[in-house]
Structure formats: C-alpha cells, structure tokens
C-alpha cells in the first residue's frame, strides 16, 4: 500500500529526472521488502505458536485418549501404577496463583499510588529502582529464600498450620513477592498517564488523597490496572523453580489452603526427565492444560479491557 502511494506521488511531480525516478523506485522497492520481512517475523511467531500447540496436542493424545475424563477427575498422580489425574496439579496451580494475586494486588496498587501521589521527590527514583531490581531476581533465588527463610519462619510462628513450613500457601506468598514488582511497575506507569489537571481539580474541590485515588485515579485507569494484574497472574501460573522448592510436591489432591500440594509446572519439572511412554504423554497433556489456562486468562483479560470504559487503557 505504502509503495503505490510513494510511486504515485513520484510520477505525479512529472518534472523529476530519470535518475531521481530510479532512486525513488529503488527506495519504494526497499520498502516493499521491509514490509515483507516484518510480516514474515509476525507470521513466524504465529507459526511457532501453532507448531507448539500442535506438537503438544499430538504428543499428549495417547494419554488423553487412554484416560479420557478420568484424567481430569482422578485425585492422584501415581506414575508407578499408571494412574494420572491432573486435578491435584490444576488445583495447586490455580490456588497458588489466586493466593498470590490476593496478596500482591493491594500491595502493588498501594506502592504505585504512593510512588505517583505521595512520595517525596528524593525517594521516588531510588524506590522505583529497588522495585525494578526485585523484578530482576532470578526465580531460583526466590525458591532458595522460600525454603531457607520463609518456610522456617512460618514453621516457627504457626507450627500447627505449617508443620513443615512448605505448602500451597507458602508457594502463594513466594509468588506474590515475585509478581509485586510487575504489577507495581505497570500500575505506576498507567497512573502516571492520568492528566494532572484531573488530580488538581479533584484536590481543588476539597477531595482527600484517599478520595482522589479511589474515585478519580483508579477508575480512570481501570483497564491498564487489569492489564498489570493479568501480567502478574500469567507469571504466577507458569512459575516453576521457586514453586517446586516450597510447594511440598504432594501428588494427592489435598483440598486445603495450607496443605502440601503441587502445581502443573512443578510436577512437570520433577518428573519429565525420568518419564517415558504414557507418563511422558500425560505430562505433555499437563503442559497443554497449563497452556490453555494461561490462554484463557489472557483472553479474559482482553475481554475485560475491551469492556472497560477506561480512557487510558
């Protein structure tokens, strides 16, 4: 499209020399190729995505075919007797992520509002940098910290609830710490897009800081905030290493909040390298399920964003 435009303008001018025409044509040609290359890159991502889904489906098919509905209803994952139920892992994945979101969202929004509204100028930069550093810590470090520091603390403080210190809630807390920087960074950026004139008018009307945050800032950037939360949720759902360390790795469905459990990612990490045959196929089916869950979460977020009336979404 762009090429016909530029070529058309060139010939329309009429009095350009032959050499000039050539140069313009060549530039137009370059543009054509540039577009094609860009399109190729975009297409490659789509193809890659398609290929991953397809290969996951193909390799998980034997297990899904063999177990059918049982794969989603069986309450344990026992490789030795070839009973593969995805329920404990799905439960653990969703529960730890929900715990993480419940803890991380209020804290992250609080930090973001503090940074944009109330923070003294000299503190703003160092604080932001520190939070971004938190986002850069490799997940294995969180895992070690969870096992060496958080789990023993929980064990000492609440020995009746956390006899071993590890478990679904411990994993949820670790995940919360891991996603706070992501949600905070996005929230801070979208809150910054609120025009100062809106804030100032609200303050001018006599609003308190709480009222400005609650009734002016947050509603006007609702969509962007949801986007930040979803980004965090996406990370929490797929997090492997840190979770494996502290979740307890119990393969029986244990429908409690603080008990031992497992997540899809942790289960795959623990068993994939030693698996073959049906077990490998079942683990790949778990991967497919994780993929679909993440996909569904992203799609849901899109839906929310489209429906939100936020000006700065």
């Amino acid at each position: 499209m762009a090429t016909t435009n530029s070529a058309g303008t060139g010939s329309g001018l009429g009095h350009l020399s032959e050499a000039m025409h050539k140069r313009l044509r060549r530039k137009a040609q370059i543009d054509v190729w540039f577009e094609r290359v860009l399109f190729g890159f975009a297409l490659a991502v789509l193809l890659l995505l398609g290929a991953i889904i397809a290969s996951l489906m193909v390799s998980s098919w034997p297990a899904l075919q063999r177990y059918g509905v049982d794969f989603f209803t069986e309450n344990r994952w026992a490789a030795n007797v070839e009973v593969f139920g995805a329920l404990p892992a799905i439960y653990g994945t969703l529960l730890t992520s929900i715990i993480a979101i419940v803890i991380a969202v209020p804290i992250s929004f609080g930090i973001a509002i503090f940074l944009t509204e109330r923070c003294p100028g000299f503190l703003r930069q160092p604080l932001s940098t520190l939070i971004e550093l938190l986002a850069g810590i490799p997940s294995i470090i969180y895992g070690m910290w969870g096992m060496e520091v958080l789990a023993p603390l929980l064990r000492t403080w609440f020995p009746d609830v956390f006899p071993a210190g590890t478990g679904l809630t411990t994993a949820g807390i670790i995940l919360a710490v891991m996603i706070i920087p992501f949600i905070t960074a996005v929230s801070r950026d979208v809150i910054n897009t609120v025009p100062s004139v809106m804030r100032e008018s609200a303050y001018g009307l006599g609003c308190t800081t709480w009222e400005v945050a609650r009734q002016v800032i947050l509603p006007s950037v609702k969509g962007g905030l949801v986007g930040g939360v979803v980004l965090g949720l996406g990370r929490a759902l797929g997090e492997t290493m840190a979770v494996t360390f502290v979740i307890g790795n119990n393969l029986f469905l244990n429908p409690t909040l603080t008990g031992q459990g497992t997540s899809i990612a942790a289960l795959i990490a623990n068993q994939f390298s030693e698996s073959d045959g049906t077990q490998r196929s079942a683990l790949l089916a778990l991967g497919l399920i994780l993929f679909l869950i993440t996909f569904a979460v992203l799609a849901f977020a899109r839906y929310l964003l489209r429906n939100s009336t936020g000006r700065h979404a």
Partner: protein
Amino acid sequence: MLKHVFATLISGSLVIAASAQAQDAITGAGATFPYPVYSQWADAYQDESGIGLNYQAIGSGGGIQQIVAKTVTFGASDAPMTKEELDKNGLMQWPMVMGGVVAAFHIDGFDGESLNLDGDTLADIYLGNITNWNDDAIAELNPDVELPDAQITPVYRAEGSGTNFLFTNYLSKVSEDFASTVGEGKSVAWPAGVGAKANAGVASQIGSTNGAIGYVEYAYAAQNELSLVHLENSDGNVVEPSMESFMAAAGNAEWQDAPGMYLVLTDQPGADSWPITGASFILMHKEVQDAEAANQALKFFDWAYSNGNEMAQELDYVPMPDNVADMVRDSWSDIQGPNGDAVWNQ
C-alpha cells in the same frame, strides 16, 4: 595467511578434542545414589590408566532411557530391570555396589537415642494413618521411651528416584495396605507428608522440621547427624542401620539364582539383616556397536571390583563380595562386538 593459521589451529584442536573424547572417556548415565562412589572410583582410575569417566547422574529412569537409546556406553539404575525388560531391549545388568536406605527422624526435645519401628507402623505413618508420635502403635514398640505429643510429618523424595523404589518396595512387602493404595515404584503418589528434592533435600527437611521422619541413603543421614530409626527385620529382630547390618542383608543375596540378576534386597531374612538394603545396577547392551568403548567400560568395572572396595566403604557403601564380582566378570562374555567376537577377554 592469518586466516589459514586460525583454521589450522581450530581444526587441529577439534580433532584433538574429538579423539580425546573417543579414547579417554567412558560415557555413562543414570542413578544418583551411587554417584559419589562412581566419581571417586573414576578419579582413582584416571590417575592410574589415564582414562576418565563421563558419568551423568540424571536418575535411574533417565539412565535406562539413555542406554536403551544407545547414547551412552552404560546405564545405571537402582531399580533392577526384569528379565523380560532386559531381553526386550537386548540389555544385560549386574550389581555394582550396595547400600542401605535408612529412616531418620527429628523431634524437638526428644532425648532418647533412637526409636524402634516395624514395617507396618512405618507404612501407617506414610499412609497418614498414624499422625502423632505418642500413638499407641509407636509406644508399644518403645516401652522404655517417653514419646512426646508431636505431629508426625513424613518427608519423601519428590522426584523419581531409586531410593523411592527401595523404600516403597520394602513397605509394599511388609504392608498389604501400602501395596494396594500406594504400591512400589520410582515415583509414587504419597497420601501424606511433604516432598523434598534429592537425598540432601530430604535430610535437611528432616533436620529442620519438628516431628519429621524421612528416608535417605545412609551416607546422607550420617553427614547430617540425624537420629536413625531402628527397624524390625523379617526375623523379628530390631536392628540398627550400620555397615554390618547392610552387609548381613547383602550376604543373603543369591545372585546365582536370580534370572537376569534381578534381585531386590529389601526385607531379607537373617538375624542381623537391615531390611531396606539395595544394590545399584549397571546396564549394557549385549551387542555393542563400539567394541573398543565397551571394552574400556568393562575394564573400569573390573578395576573397580578389584580395587574399589575400600573407597566404597569409606563412603558407607557395601562393596560386592568377590564371588559375585567373579560371577559378573564371567557374564561379560555375553557381550559381543559388531563382528560377533566377545568384547571382554581376560
């Protein structure tokens, strides 16, 4: 000119590297349980012969996969393969070294030396049927000990492992309940307790959790100074885990009568036998493509049988008795190169 020099240098070093790999390293992969002793042997063997060992401790399941796929010269597994499995894949196996799996516990304020348990009670603990240390079943086995009121937290291996296999194999032998609900295997679903990674992870989880009980390979328990459970064996004697009781169990093993050398040494008879003893196995193809590589691997195993006993004992492993080693050497005549000749001839 300069390019030429570089090219020559690079290709030269590549050739050297490639030939060094081909001639001077035996490749193997598998169980983590015997890894400390294998690497110790390999160091000593390299000093003597100049031939190194490239052993990847990726777990027993992975070792079986790799030898079936022929990416390594030998595989290693703590869980033996059955005769049928071996024949299906054209493999043979033999025991290389033995060791004991022990139950360790940690209770804050417990001043006794150790606790006595029997297989049934241990199985009930791992099934979640016994949840407190002052349970009557435990008290009955320990009449002289004052048991604290503490919740029991069973600790188990989270990933597939040979230690899991030995422990669940033992519990399945002694408890029908355990056999029917959990069963034996390298990777099982435990109804109760917390999982930890590797022997070291289990040991540290036990050490730091009040009321924990867990199972580890003996060397790890010794390193972490954990209190060890004394177990009742199949003769009804309560035995202490030690080199002597592992050897007593190992001495029972009738390798001659075991088809394909499939032998699991748990719950062995004998007054002093430790009930959770096991051997670690080496797997090789009966028809090998690279006779030279196979021969070098066998030379290493031969050397380890003859010279490695002391090193194994220092690391709390039980070496194979000489008569078993001789029997294994004899069985090597079954390994043939591509031309049909026996690879091993000594």
